[in-house]
Structures are given as C-alpha cells and as structure tokens.
C-alpha cells in the first residue's frame, strides 16, 4: 500500500529504536517474572548464608516448617495483591484474619461435624467485611487506606464486643490435622501452597476478569471509557481480599489450635511488603502472583531467621519496614528509567489542569 510506504519513510527512527524493547518483552521472561526469580534467588542466598554461619540452621525439617508457616502470608497476600493491582490497599487484612480465626474456633469448638457449616459461615462473614470495604471505595469514593482502616477498626470493635476480648477456644481437630499431616511425606500445607500458587496465578493472569483488573489499575479513566465494570470489579477485589484473609485466618487457627483477637495483626504489614517485594506497582496495573508468592516466601524465611537470631519484636519491625522502603526504592528506579524512555513526544501538560479548585492563602 502506498500509504504504508509514506509512513515508514516518515518515521525511520521509530522502527530502529523500538526493536530492542520489542525483543525484551516478547521473550518468555517478562520483567515481573524476573523480579520473582530474583526474590527467590535472594531467599536462597539468605538461607545459604545463614547455613554457613550456623550449620544447624537449614535442615530439611526447618525448611518444611518455614514453608508451612508461610502459607498464611502466601494466602493473605494474594488478596492484598489483587487490591494493590487496582491501585488500592487493604489495611483490614490483619483484623479479618483474626475474625476469621475467632469465628471458626468459636463455631466449631472442638467438633469436626460443625466444620460443614462453620467454614461457609466464616468465609461469608469475612467476604462481607471485604465487600463493605469495596462498596466504600467504589461508591463512596473513600480513599482505600482510610476505608479499610476504618472498617478494620469498626470490625475489631464488633468482635471485641461479641467476645469480650478473651476467646481462645479449641478449633476443630480436622483443621489441626490439616496443618500437620503429610501426604507421601510432604506436609499438606506445602501442597496447598502449590495449589494456591497455580490457582491464583491462573485466576489473576489468565482470566478475562483478571485482565480487566490490570486494565483498571493501569488507567481508571480509560477503563471507564472502554466500559469496564469498574465498581463491580473493585468490590470483587476487596471481597476476594476478605476471602483470602479468612482462609488464612482459618488455617492459622488450625495451626495454632486456637484463636485470639490479635493473631492476624502480624500479617498485615508483611502482606503489603510481600506484594511490593514481588514487583507490583503500588499505584496499580503491574505485578503478578508469582512475585507476591516469592515475596511471601522471602518474608517467611526472613522471619524464621529473625527468630533463630532471637531478635526482639522491635528489630523485626525495623527490618520489615526497611524492606518495604528498600523494595519501593528498587522499583522506583526501574520505573524512573521507563518513564524517561516513554516520555511523550511533545511532553504536553495535562490540559484540564486549569479547571480546578481554589482556596485562599
């Protein structure tokens, strides 16, 4: 076609300069995957160093224990990852985990029969909390960190009122067995982790709804014009986060054969850290579950090391907070490079800026 000829001759520069990037992204290893592999590599290295310093560390049993205890974070951070993918954040995960554990412990009270209805009730009530978050964010336009923090505070108040603060009943034995039994020598939690990794990845990266989440996180304005169901998917993502937190809470209750009102708290910040370490963008649109998974494993291993080194809770916090900041910094460097590469041709400012609010100084 004649026209194609005109175009090519008009812009030779585009043809040459775009190609290296093309090759990079087309290859099987997407940047997110590379991040995930790097994190797993870092985890291995960290373990090896510990092993070198302390030969008793790093037995097969210990590794199995690390993986087993990582399941709470692996599951909980999946929901957090979906919410962050949308550019939001869920600060209610810790409280929802506790509530999930409390409900399942309270309802089963040591009986396996009760599980049949106790599990659905637990899951549904926690999903309901997530849906409230989603409704507030989607329809009331409350900033996610405030909405989820407010809901968490309120839900904690309700739980406190109902339980009078002191509840540590026994969980159904089946749940405890689930967390300790093995199939062909492999602890069941590790198998569950594998399942959730595969299932979660498929759901996030291979489904139409997952694709839409990426699109919304990438640009809400464009998603609205394209007609994506933004509100429904936002509510869905927060609901999913509630679901994941409750599953994590049930498993945690099974593992520790009881529940307390603050048992989920230690998992809130790590769930955010896992997502950020995994290479997801806190502004949304980027990241996958493999990365989050790698981040969760990394944090669990680190947590075990901290325990082995018998560092206090304070140091644990300092390290965790520091990791979030470092992970963010590493990411921002990448984005920065990309931003330079993708600056628009004319660099025009946003034209609708001028129309704006006012107040007097």
């Amino acid at each position: 076609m004649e026209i194609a000829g005109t175009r090519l001759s008009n812009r030779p520069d585009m043809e040459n300069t775009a190609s290296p990037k093309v090759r990079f992204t087309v290859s099987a290893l997407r940047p997110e995957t590379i991040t995930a592999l790097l994190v797993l590599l870092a985890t291995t290295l960290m373990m090896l160093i510990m092993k070198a310093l302390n030969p008793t560390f790093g037995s097969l049993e210990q590794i199995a224990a690390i993986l087993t205890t990582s399941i709470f974070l692996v599951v909980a951070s999946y929901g957090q990852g979906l919410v962050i993918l949308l550019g939001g954040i869920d600060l209610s995960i810790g409280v929802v985990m506790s509530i999930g554990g409390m409900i399942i412990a309270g309802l089963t009270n040591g009986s396996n029969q009760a599980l049949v209805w106790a599990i659905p009730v637990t899951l549904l009530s926690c999903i309901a909390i997530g849906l409230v978050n989603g409704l507030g964010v989607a329809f009331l336009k409350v900033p996610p960190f405030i909405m989820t923090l407010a809901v968490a505070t309120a839900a904690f108040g309700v739980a406190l009122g109902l339980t009078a603060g002191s509840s540590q009943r026994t969980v159904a034995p089946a749940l405890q067995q689930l967390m300790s039994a093995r199939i062909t020598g492999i602890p069941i939690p590790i198998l569950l982790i594998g399942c959730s990794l595969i299932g979660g990845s498929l759901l996030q990266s291979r489904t139409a709804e997952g694709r839409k989440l990426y699109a919304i996180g990438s640009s809400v304005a464009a998603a609205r014009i394209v007609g994506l169901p933004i509100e429904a998917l936002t509510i869905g993502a927060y609901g999913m986060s509630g679901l994941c937190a409750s599953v994590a809470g049930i498993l945690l209750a099974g593992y520790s054969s009881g529940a307390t009102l603050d048992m989920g708290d230690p998992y809130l910040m790590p769930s955010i850290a896992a997502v950020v370490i995994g290479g997801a963008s806190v502004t949304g649109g980027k990241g996958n579950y493999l990365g989050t998974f790698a981040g969760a494993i990394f944090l669990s291993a680190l947590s075990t090391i901290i325990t082995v080194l018998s560092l206090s809770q304070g140091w644990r916090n300092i390290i965790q907070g520091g990791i979030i900041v470092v992970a963010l910094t590493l990411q921002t460097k990448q984005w920065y490079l990309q931003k330079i590469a993708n600056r628009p041709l004319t660099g025009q400012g946003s034209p609708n800026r001028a129309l704006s609010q006012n107040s007097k100084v």
Partner: protein
Amino acid sequence: MVKRDVSSLTPILQATGVHKRYGATIALEDLSFSLYPGEVCGLLGENGAGKSTLVKILSGIVVPDAGEIALEGQAYQPHNIVDARTRGVSTAFQELSLIPTLSIAANLFLPKPKVNAIGLVTIRAIEELTETILKQHAVFDVSPSTLVGDLSLGLRQRIEIVRAMLREPRVLLLDEPTAAIADREWLFGLIESLLARGTAILYITHRLDEVRRLCKRCVVLRNGRKVLDAALEDMTDDQIFSKMAGRSVVETYPIRESNIDESAPPVLAAHKASAAGVNDVTFRLRRGEILGLAALEGQGQSSLFRVLAGLVPLKGGSIEVNGGPVRLRSPRSARAAGIILVPEERKTEGIFNDLSTAANISIPVINQAARFNFIRNRKERQMVERGASRVDLNSRYLWPNINALSGGNQQKTILARSLLANPKCLLLFDPTRGVDVGTKQIIYQVIRKFAREGGAAVFYSTELDELVHLCDRCLVMYRNAIVAEVRQEELTPHLLLSLAAGHKIDVHGTA
C-alpha cells in the same frame, strides 16, 4: 533600563546542533538557529514537531542530549527555570503555569514574593505593586487579590504573559500566546514595546496570520528538524504550509464518496440536549455520515462528547439512537447502544499504559475470546490481528508494551479497539492530534471506510482543513451551543473559523 545593541548582526541567542530524544521518539534533531535582538522570530510547526521541546530546553526545564546554546556569546546551559530567568530568558507557557488557588499578586511574584524583615510575604505591598504592573500592561478591571482560579481562561493567559514580561527578559518565549485571547492587539502592543527595548522574541504559534503580522523571519520545524528558516516576505502561505506538513495541502485527503442513508432513522440524534457545559444542542446524525464539529478551545465540544459517550449525565432534552430514545447513564450503556468514544486525552483516557498493545485492543471484547472466563490465546490473537489490520497497524507492534509505541501507533491501537466492538457510531475527538502525517492518512481512510460501510461518526478536530475535507456536514459550537451548521459545499476553513469565533454569518440551513 540597560541599553542594548540593536544591530542584527550578532545574535543574542544561538543554538547549534541541539538534539533531544525521549526514548523511542526523537523530539529535536540537529537543530541550529539564532535569535537577534529586537526581532520577533516565528516558530511554526504541527503538533509534535518539536516546538514545545525547544521551548522547554530554552527555558531550562529539559536538558538537551547534545548541542550547544550560547546567550550573548556565553555558554547557556540552564539547570532550571529560575536559572534561565536570571540569565534573562523568560517564558509564557502554553499550559499556563499559574496556581489557581493563589491570588494574581502571589502568582505574579512566585517563586520568591517579596518578604518583610521576619520572612512574611507582604501581601499589601505585592498587591499594590501588582495593581501598577497590571495597569502598565493594560490589564484593567481585575483586583490583584483575585484568585487565578476565578479568572476566565483569557485573563489567565494574559496574567501568564504579563508575568513573563515582568522580568525584563532579554529573550522572551511566547508559546501559543493567543490560544485563549480574543484581543490579540493587546499582545501585539506589548510586544512592540518590548522590541523597542531590544528584547528578542520567539513566537510559537499555529497561526500563520499572526506570524505574518509580527515577524520578519520564521523557522519551521517538522518531526524535530528545522525545515525552513527564511524571511517571510519571500514565502507564500502555501509554501510555508507545505513545509510544515511535508506535503502539499490539497491532494492528501481521501476522495469523498459519501454513502449517506437518508431513509433510515438517524443513528444518533440529540434534541435540545443540555448538561454541564452543553446548552440546548440539537442535531441528527445519519447512517454513513461524517458529521464534523468545529469549535475554538473550550466551547463545550468536550462536554458534548462526554454527554454522548455517557460520561456526563444529561440534564435536559433527549438523545435518540436509531430513532428510539436512550438514556446514556455510563460509557457502558453508550457502548451497548453502539456509541464508542475515541477520547481526547490519549495518554490518560485512551491507552492502558501497563498492558501490551494487543491487550489494549482486545480489552473491551476480551470475554469473546474467553471460554469459562479463561482467555484463549489463539482466539485473542485472531481478534487482535483482525482489528490491527483494519487500521494498518504492523503486527510486530502488537506484543510489546503499548508505551513503547509512537503516538501515531497508539492512536491506531485505540481506533482498532473501537472498531473491534462493531460500533454504529464513533465519537472522534481530535483523533489526529500529535500524530505523524502518515498515520493521519490512515486515520482519514479508516473513518471514510467506516462511514462507507454504514457507520456514522461525529468528528471534532482542531485542524480545520480536516473538517473541510473529511466531513459531509459540519456543526460549529460557540459558548456551549451549536451556532451554525455548514453544508459540505460551503465548507471552508475561513468560514468555520469565523463562525467558531462567534461572528454571525448568514449560512444556509442553520440548525
């Protein structure tokens, strides 16, 4: 005032071999030019030709990759805007760098308004000073304490210009200074007085008549290169235009072969529609028709498009699709009615920055490629390739991330996406903005083909030529209302421009 040498032999500003690229796109390539004291030099070029980049380099916002700039014989490498200003280079920006929540006085003296002994900004003093300055620059009837956000666009632009002139610059950059100003003589008067002081002015504009009025010399950029640097009196308008566009203006539009279906009910019709920013709009769009929309900046065209796309609720009147009334509650319901918007802001409302080009194309219809909600790669690939071929988008651009693509290819992506949903009506808001010439051709062809095959389009463009050559009919908007309807036979850029500027001209068949 310092007395300056007004001889035009030694340039006040000289740029040699300036080079700037943003990732894949070259914004400026090997640009050399000079600016002499006491002259106004016109800088012309299409959108994306590199004018804004040049302004940003000269005013210290962007650092060039290569090249040298000398100001009055000394090396000039401003690190930031304050740096440039102290060296005597001042800029009135196209985007207007005013803060709406601050008063005019505060804005004029940013970033360092005068302070008293204890570091407080002396509001009364700067307001008095502002009063005098505004008077000197013939801006009347406005109090210095007014918040800039409360001013009309025209007044804001005046304040922006006054602020740039305030610092007695040796070089003044005016970037599209008349975009919102009706009274151009006001600006021309100020320019005269600056020239008398020996200031050199670089005047960036789209409007050739302004360049003819003010300048003796003009520089034309195209795709980042200087393609013309000549005295204006030697050039005809047509010569300059063809330099700007890299083509001769007349022969590039596809031949019009309208296929308007008069018998079918209108694809889209508005009856006395009003909403925020839209007043009493009535029109009918028939099958196979391309309905143009001409308007100056901010005359409600954007709001009208948003109403039709379901983004802004209708307050009064009605909208009909295929003869039946519809309520466009959201872009979703507009899509369901077959109306698809190609939005104004490609970067923020058009593309999904984090997705691949292919995913950008398939996203609205992704469910069609999915079974049990799982995406089938082959089906998606077929769909995307079908869409891409309709807009002549090379398939090797499909799999990389969309932000690796040029503006033109991004726009093609958005068109492919829009066509894939089988729309009945396309709302095209300035689809050729910031797009290279080759892509423009393809966009024209795509729109024509779409109409020929029974689609209908509402087409707004800032390029009047496009409206004249592409549309079957053209509406003109002024102050949020449709003020005229021009038939194809009568379409000329002059007529559209004067109607859009609010002049009352008797046109046959006014809506």
